[in-house]
């Protein structure tokens, strides 16, 4: 585009009026730097419009100027280094009021913080209490569930109860087993009438199959301090008799310790 065309296009007018797009404005700026004719035309448009604006003067109120100057002086003092600023009495009262509010709010903070701490403590205690109750409930639920399992074993119509009687070495001992003989072959034992095993020793359960003892598993004597617990042993499809011996901890593949109780089918 030639300079003449740019000048006559009206773009320079829009530029002066602030109506040109950012891109157009940048273009005009660089053209004005390059071509004195463009710069001169812009200056002429500006001067024409400025004169036009001067014909539309509306004098502001005389107080406006003072307000502007007091505003710029307040600002520059805020920026400057530690000048003494005279404050109007309104601001003095405002400052005093804000200090009172601040102190009041600080006192309230202390009071409410104390209250908060007490409430927080109570809350922590309540949480602990709640957790205790929850734990108790959980353990009750668990023992209830175990009890139900036990009852299930005892009540099952398929379980065949077998009493294991005390033998020569422990005439007072006794135990009961429940054998799901004709269904799953599961064996449960109630060891509650066995005497407490000495430390380092454990009861081992045996089934006699074809005249030979077969390991039926170790009896857990106490469980969470509760020794009266019916527990599942190894499964036997067939057996002529069941027995319990006292073995060193961990048990053995063949019975080595004293025979405590025994019951024949």
């Amino acid at each position, binding site marked *: 585009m030639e300079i003449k065309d740019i000048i006559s296009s009206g773009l320079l007018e829009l530029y002066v009026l*602030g109506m040109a797009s950012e891109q157009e404005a940048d273009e005009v700026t660089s053209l004005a730097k390059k071509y004195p004719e463009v710069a001169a035309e812009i200056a002429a448009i500006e001067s024409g419009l*400025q004169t*036009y604006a001067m014909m539309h003067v509306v004098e502001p109120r005389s107080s406006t100027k003072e307000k502007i100057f007091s505003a710029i002086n307040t600002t520059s003092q805020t920026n400057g280094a530690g000048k003494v600023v005279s404050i109007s009495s309104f601001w003095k009262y405002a400052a005093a009021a804000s200090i009172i509010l601040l102190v009041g709010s600080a006192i309230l903070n202390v009071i409410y913080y104390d209250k908060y701490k007490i409430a927080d403590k109570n809350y922590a205690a309540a949480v602990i209490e709640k957790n205790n109750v929850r734990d108790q409930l959980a353990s009750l639920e668990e023992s209830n569930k175990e009890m139900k399992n036990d009852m299930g074993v005892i009540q099952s119509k398929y379980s065949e109860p077998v009493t294991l009687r005390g033998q020569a070495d422990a005439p007072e001992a006794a135990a009961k087993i429940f054998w799901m003989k004709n269904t799953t072959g599961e064996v449960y034992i109630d060891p509650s009438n066995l005497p407490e095993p000495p430390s380092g020793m454990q009861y081992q359960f045996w089934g006699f199959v074809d005249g030979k003892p077969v390991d039926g598993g170790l009896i857990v004597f106490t469980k969470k301090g509760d020794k009266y617990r019916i527990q599942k042993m190894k499964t036997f499809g067939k057996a002529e008799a069941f027995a319990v011996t006292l073995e060193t901890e961990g048990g053995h593949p063949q019975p080595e310790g004293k025979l405590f109780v025994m019951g024949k089918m």
Partner: protein
Amino acid sequence: MAEDIKYSEEELVLSLQRRDQKAFSYLYDNYAGALNGIICRMVEESQLAEDILQEAFLKIWNNFSQYDSSKGRLFTWMINLTRNLTIDTLRSKGYKKQQKISRDENSVSNYHDKNAGADKFDTLGLRKQVANLKPEQKSIIDLAYFNGYTQEEISKEMGIPLGTVKTRMRSAIMELRKMLEYN
């Protein structure tokens, strides 16, 4: 305020860059009326208009470093700043731009009747010249210059195609310039 010193535009700009309050005072004395004229074209409430004028001058003072003399005259920068500030203020208060325009169709003479003492120019002679502007030429200048209308808004307001706004603006301002030169 007495005008002891006369500043050239260059001196004025340099002094304002040095944050010379005397120069700022001179600036105010010479241009506040013109800027206020623009504000009053768009704002009806006199208190709001005064607030905007104050804010405009604070902006001119605080943001003076943003003025780039290579991009145009100081007055052009100030008037564009003032116009944009006024439009933004009105918009933030939910006003529309066209608020006052219809009432001010013949405002050159109206405003001067109200401001008899305002003349720093010999505006009487100028006014006679400008009165010869065709109404549509005056309108297109006023809408853009005093009311900050965009090209689209002018096209709509005046019922002319968007593409011709630029050329119409050019010829209207050319006409205005011719009249002012003859004076």
